[in-house]
């Protein structure tokens, strides 16, 4: 049975149980009387306003958010869309800017292989050594964690951090190189 307002015959929309000094009392109020007594109530036109506000927020949000940008290689302007369309990469630096995406493509194209084995140019020796060292430390770190050798793991982690992140390419001597080198340890 529908509970009516304590002050009128309208249906109650606010129901409150109050226990004061051990005495329990109940309050049932319609929207108007609840608003009168200071209960926080949504306004009459709240549904449409809410929808509108939501739309506004969405629109505002869209306007405030940058439009969905296409990531382009800062060196040659190439994009992954172009790679997918032509099957060709734009420049050596694309391999760093799209490393994850190209890595996935390469692994598929190369029957699951994803790491180079074989000779390398002399000018890339330091990078190759550093990458090999990083791979070795990362493997040892995983093993140490698996064996719960946490002190050793911490030392390995520190060594890895000393080596720096991202390594990895010996392929840029253009104007982009200095900034890139600072970020990722380029050589070339």
């Amino acid at each position, binding site marked *: 049975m529908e509970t009516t307002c304590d002050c009128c015959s309208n249906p109650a929309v606010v129901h409150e149980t109050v226990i004061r000094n051990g005495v329990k009392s109940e309050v049932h109020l319609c929207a108007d009387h609840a608003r009168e007594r200071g209960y926080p109530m949504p306004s009459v036109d709240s549904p449409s306003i809410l929808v509108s506000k939501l739309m506004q927020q969405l629109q505002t949000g869209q306007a405030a958010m940058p439009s969905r940008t296409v990531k382009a290689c800062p060196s040659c302007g190439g994009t992954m869309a172009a790679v997918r369309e032509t099957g060709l990469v734009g420049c050596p630096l694309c391999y760093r800017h799209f490393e994850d995406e190209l890595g996935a493509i390469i692994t598929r194209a190369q029957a699951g*292989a994803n790491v180079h084995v074989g000779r390398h140019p002399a000018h890339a020796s330091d990078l190759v050594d550093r*990458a090999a060292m990083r791979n070795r430390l990362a493997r040892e770190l995983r093993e140490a964690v698996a064996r719960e050798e946490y002190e050793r793991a911490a030392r390995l982690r520190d060594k890895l951090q000393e080596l720096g992140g991202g390594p990895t390419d010996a392929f840029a001597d253009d104007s982009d190189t200095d900034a890139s080198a600072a970020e990722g340890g380029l050589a070339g």
Partner: protein
Amino acid sequence: MSAEGIPEQTPEKPERSGHAQHTSRLSNLHGAGNPSPMAPDADCVLSSRIRLARNLIGFPFVNRANPAQCSDVVHRVQATRLGGPFASGVRWVNVQATTAEDRLLLFERNLISRPFVESNHPRCVAISADESASVMVNEEDHLRLQMLAPGLQLGPIVERMLELDRTLEHGLEFAFHPRFGYLTACPTNVGTGLRVSVMLHLPALHILEELEKVQRAAKDLHLAVRGFHGEGTEALGDFFQISNQTTLGRGEHDLVEEFVHSIVPRFVAYERAARQALLERDASSLEDRVYRALGILRACRLLSLDEAIKFLSRVRLGVAIGRITEVSLPLVDRLMLEVQSAHLARATGCTLGDDRAARANLVRSALR
């Protein structure tokens, strides 16, 4: 300086890289198509080829490079000592400035690729004096180094190729990534950038309708099977090129060793067994087939290229199994080169595409 910005004279010094010639007009090409009679496994293997893809640091790949950048790449490579097979002489050909017939001639001799023939980029090719090596500049990659040898000779040519690569490194910085290896325009070539291929002659497997099995075996071994002139070409005369499809995750020597000691011997043994089976089953039919082909080639007055390759292939089989003794394998292999359109046009003056009579004359007189 040519209109395209490629110098007509190479800056190379003779004492550094042999006697360099620079030309846009071809003449006196010789050598590449002349297999040695002693070539290993020549009965089933027409030729071996090793290719390396390399790109220079600081330049976009050819597909995104403008003409000035392409010309700059050409200049840098031409200013670099090639060494190795080029030590005794190098001929630089400005491919953009050559005639269509010359480009076709280089293609028929396997010194340049089909895409290189058709490209519009400023480009050139260096050809060694003995035509066993070439360097295409601005094909899909800045450099495509290539070594050719008759028969199965992958071992020796990969050593020469790596020597050439090391020599080039003194003057050029190649794009490299510790994870992806040598960086190439197409991700399918990263890693070693090494493509190993052999041209197999498999006529008996064709007669026994076993070629489908060969294709399947090749696929299982991650090999690409292509036609007479490589990628995008049809198989002519039962000649098939097999090559590695993957270039990442295996070292250069490892890959070549597998070809030399496992892959090629498997196909060769399969073909030889098929030849033996044909001889045991019905030697007369096989002899009729190869001698009939020889008869046609000795008597014909008009001969298309496809017919020429088809009948030369049969004659080659007859020579390889010892049934035809009056013709040698090197002669058959030389004819397979000389009957091609640009070679025929150059040798006889006939018109490209209207050459059936000239081809028949050439073959008749050679096999007389």
